[in-house]
């Protein structure tokens, strides 16, 4: 590679770093002061692009000046939307548990995901070309898009202004003080609420700015939000939450790595990103410039009652349900059976997530990864190794637990929101690999025609029923086991766990792998049930579905995810009959759960039944 080409690649990398920095610095600043990880941050980035598109079109911005004005105006509009979201929703969220904060901000991104195509349509939108910003310049014999240089300059200007605002203004002083000690700032007479609103607005403004700037490089499209938030998470995990310097350094690192990676090892690009993240976390779990987090107790479940032996009525209900499902094929037709199979698969998936979320107290946003790995293990096994139904079904949980071992080893080094972000980013990396590795996975087209000709639907139904019953029995059992007890200690009192000789990370890893094994089994079953596998099996959407199922049911016992999964599945099917705006409905539903039913349906009912006894 010539010097010119290398330089051009390096500059392209810097231009990508500019976007990464603008997105992640806002995320990081908001977290530093409010301790909330804003999952909707990527969606605001996307809104920036769409609003920018609208403005440049409306004003027919054909010269550079009007183009830049449109970009800045788009950022201001997005910032105003962010301010509205902070005032209406976020303000109610600062006191609720982490999981709900993450879910609520994710719900905002779901709303945005569904509202944008209503307004702008599903197609990718290309902003009008501004001649003076297009084209390239010659750099040691290689051509370099001139717009990339503008991007770098824009990020540099923002960095400079941000630096001045943070170091030279009263507002910046308050931000830095509140990032270190919020309570003391309050005790000195500063109303933090407006500080939070200001920082949130600024963060969203920067995300919108990055999105609008993106118009000069690519079209506005509906996938850009998710990829932006993934990369931003990688950046803040590497750089350290709350650190502007960290965001800058990590953005440059990732931007350059991607650009040069594309040039030198096009296939390994995403794997490289994973390796860097692994290397940084292995040495510094809180990121390059982050502060180590204290081992804090997860307060979410501290008022849960002690586990009880499975009660007689519940056991009776389970047996009755099992009997009912055994005779179901006599009544139900093929379609009915396939619905029941789908519900059972959802139950196994939600049940496996329950183990991590309930007794484990760890919030994962990447559980779909292990479901998808199981599904793809079946598909690839059948397609390339000619595996039988049985051996493919064994391979699924095995493959999922191997991935869980590697990813879990990394993830259990952190806890709280870091765990959520890391599991999410790891799952997205796997998703991207599957999506891009067209030759092997079929990319977006998936792998189809997986149903073995020798397999009868009735046999498959009973296999699924047996495996579901067994999985739920095991997943419901584990909390009652020695491991389950240790796991609950790591959740409720990490300091106590260490003092009585429990290796917190190892216990968490063990539970993580077991849970992923069952998620993989569910994925394997789903590959057969559908006869096909698509990248959506690994998508964040599926992880969120799982979280909503568990939360709808409640995290206090295995009955929660079972009821929640069934309810969720049937509701989804019903709603999809009337509208395809499912994400809109789901987003509203999540916000309702968070604000009204924080204990889940089963949890709320059982709390009511317990009445005053536990208080």
């Amino acid at each position, binding site marked *: 590679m010539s010097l010119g080409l290398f330089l051009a690649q390096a500059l392209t990398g810097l231009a990508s770093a500019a976007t990464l920095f603008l997105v992640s610095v806002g995320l990081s600043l908001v977290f530093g002061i409010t301790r909330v990880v804003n999952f909707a941050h990527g969606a605001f980035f996307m809104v920036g692009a769409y609003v920018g598109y609208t403005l440049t079109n409306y004003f027919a911005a054909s010269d550079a000046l009007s183009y830049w004005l449109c970009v800045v105006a788009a950022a201001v509009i997005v910032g105003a939307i962010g301010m509205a979201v902070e005032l209406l929703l976020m303000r109610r969220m600062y006191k609720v548990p982490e999981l709900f904060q993450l879910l609520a901000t994710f719900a905002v991104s779901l709303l945005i995901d569904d509202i944008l195509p209503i307004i702008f349509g599903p197609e990718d939108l290309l902003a009008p070309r501004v001649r003076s910003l297009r084209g390239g310049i010659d750099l040691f014999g290689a051509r370099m898009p001139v717009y990339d240089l503008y991007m770098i300059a824009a990020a540099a200007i923002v960095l400079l202004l941000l630096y001045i605002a943070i170091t030279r203004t009263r507002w910046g002083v308050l931000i*830095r003080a509140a990032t270190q000690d919020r309570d*003391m700032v309050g005790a000195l007479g500063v109303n933090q609420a407006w500080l939070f609103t200001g920082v949130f607005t600024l963060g969203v403004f920067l995300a919108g700015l990055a999105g609008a700037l993106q118009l000069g490089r690519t079209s506005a499209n509906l996938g850009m939000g998710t990829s932006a938030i993934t990369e931003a998470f990688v950046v803040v995990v590497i750089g350290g939450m709350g650190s502007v310097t960290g965001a800058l350094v990590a953005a440059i690192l990732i931007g350059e790595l991607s650009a040069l990676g594309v040039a030198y090892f096009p296939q390994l690009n995403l794997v490289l990103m994973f390796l860097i993240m692994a290397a940084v976390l292995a040495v510094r779990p809180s990121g390059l410039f982050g502060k180590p987090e204290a081992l804090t107790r997860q307060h979410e479940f501290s008022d849960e009652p002690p586990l009880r032996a499975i009660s007689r009525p519940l056991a009776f209900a389970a047996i009755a349900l099992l009997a009912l499902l055994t005779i179901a094929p006599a009544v139900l037709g093929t379609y009915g059976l396939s619905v029941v199979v789908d519900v059972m698969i959802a139950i196994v998936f939600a049940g496996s997530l329950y183990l991590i979320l309930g007794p484990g107290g760890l919030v994962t946003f990447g559980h779909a990864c292990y479901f998808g790995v199981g599904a793809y293990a079946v598909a690839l096994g059948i397609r390339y190794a000619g595996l039988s139904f049985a051996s493919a079904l064994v391979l699924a949980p095995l493959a999922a637990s191997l991935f869980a071992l590697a990813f879990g080893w990394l993830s259990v080094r952190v806890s709280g929101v870091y765990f959520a972000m890391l599991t999410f980013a790891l799952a997205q990396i796997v998703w991207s690999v599957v999506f891009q590795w067209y030759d092997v996975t079929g990319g977006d087209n998936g792998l189809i025609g997986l149903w073995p000709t020798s397999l009868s639907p009735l046999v498959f139904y009973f296999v699924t029923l047996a495996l579901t019953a067994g999985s739920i029995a095991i997943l419901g059992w584990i909390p009652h086991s020695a491991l389950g007890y240790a796991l609950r200690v790591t959740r409720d009192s990490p300091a106590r766990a260490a003092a009585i000789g429990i290796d917190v990370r190892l216990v968490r890893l063990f539970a993580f792998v077991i849970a992923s094994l069952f998620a993989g089994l569910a994925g394997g079953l789903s590959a057969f049930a559908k006869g096909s596998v698509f990248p959506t099996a690994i998508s964040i959407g599926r992880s969120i579905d799982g979280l909503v199922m568990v939360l709808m049911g409640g995290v206090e016992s295995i009955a929660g995810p079972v009821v929640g999964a069934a309810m969720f599945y049937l509701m989804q099917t019903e709603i999809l009959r009337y509208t395809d705006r499912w994400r809109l409905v789901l987003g509203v539903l999540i916000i309702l759960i968070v604000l009204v039913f924080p204990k889940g349906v089963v949890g709320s009912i059982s709390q009511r039944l317990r009445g005053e006894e536990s208080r």
Partner: protein
Amino acid sequence: MTSSPLLEVSGLVARYGKARVLDGLDLTVNRGETVAILGRNGAGKSTLMKCIIGLITEKTGSIRFNGAEIATLPPYKVSRAGIGYVPEERRIFTELTVRENLEVGRLRGRSNTRWPLDRIIEIFPNLKRLLDRPGAQMSGGEQQMVTMARTLLTGPDLILLDEPSEGLAPVIVDQMAGMIRDMQASGLSILISEQNMRFASKISQRAYLLERGEIKFSGPMQTIATNQELYHAHLAV
């Protein structure tokens, strides 16, 4: 002149988790008065301070300041009502310079005629040469001055000093007594918690003896300082 006390705490109960740290506390501070809360470690002195400023919300009972109920207000409103809080751990913003630490306390929009910066630097002359020093690079005594100055900038009528002498060398403690006298001379009311009785007795008129969350005795500082029985029962080793 109104005759009602500046600060009036009654029936204050505070819990830390399940432990009752304050158990039905009554206390008053009059205008222009300096009142000491004496007691050993763990008696509940810091908890009392945090309850008044509003950092502890899990509490019952009444806290009236200038006649208005403030027990349910968030810290920033208590501060704006005119109460300054100097915490035991000092809680300097270590990543900010001294000047910036002071800036956090400076009230904007509300004129602070009683405590302009020059006046504060008169009381704490050492601050002048420290202004650009990072908060992390200061001795305990310097930190104590910064946190007191920062609090004065909020323009308080009453200041809560939580164990200001703790961990300081005797010379510095003496200096601090002088600074507190300067503050008193400006009409500031002070509620000070101390384990160091000698120091407390130099600056306060009245005192409460706090033990295990309850007031065991209250009266003129003189009485406590000279009453051996009280002293041995509640303070001495």
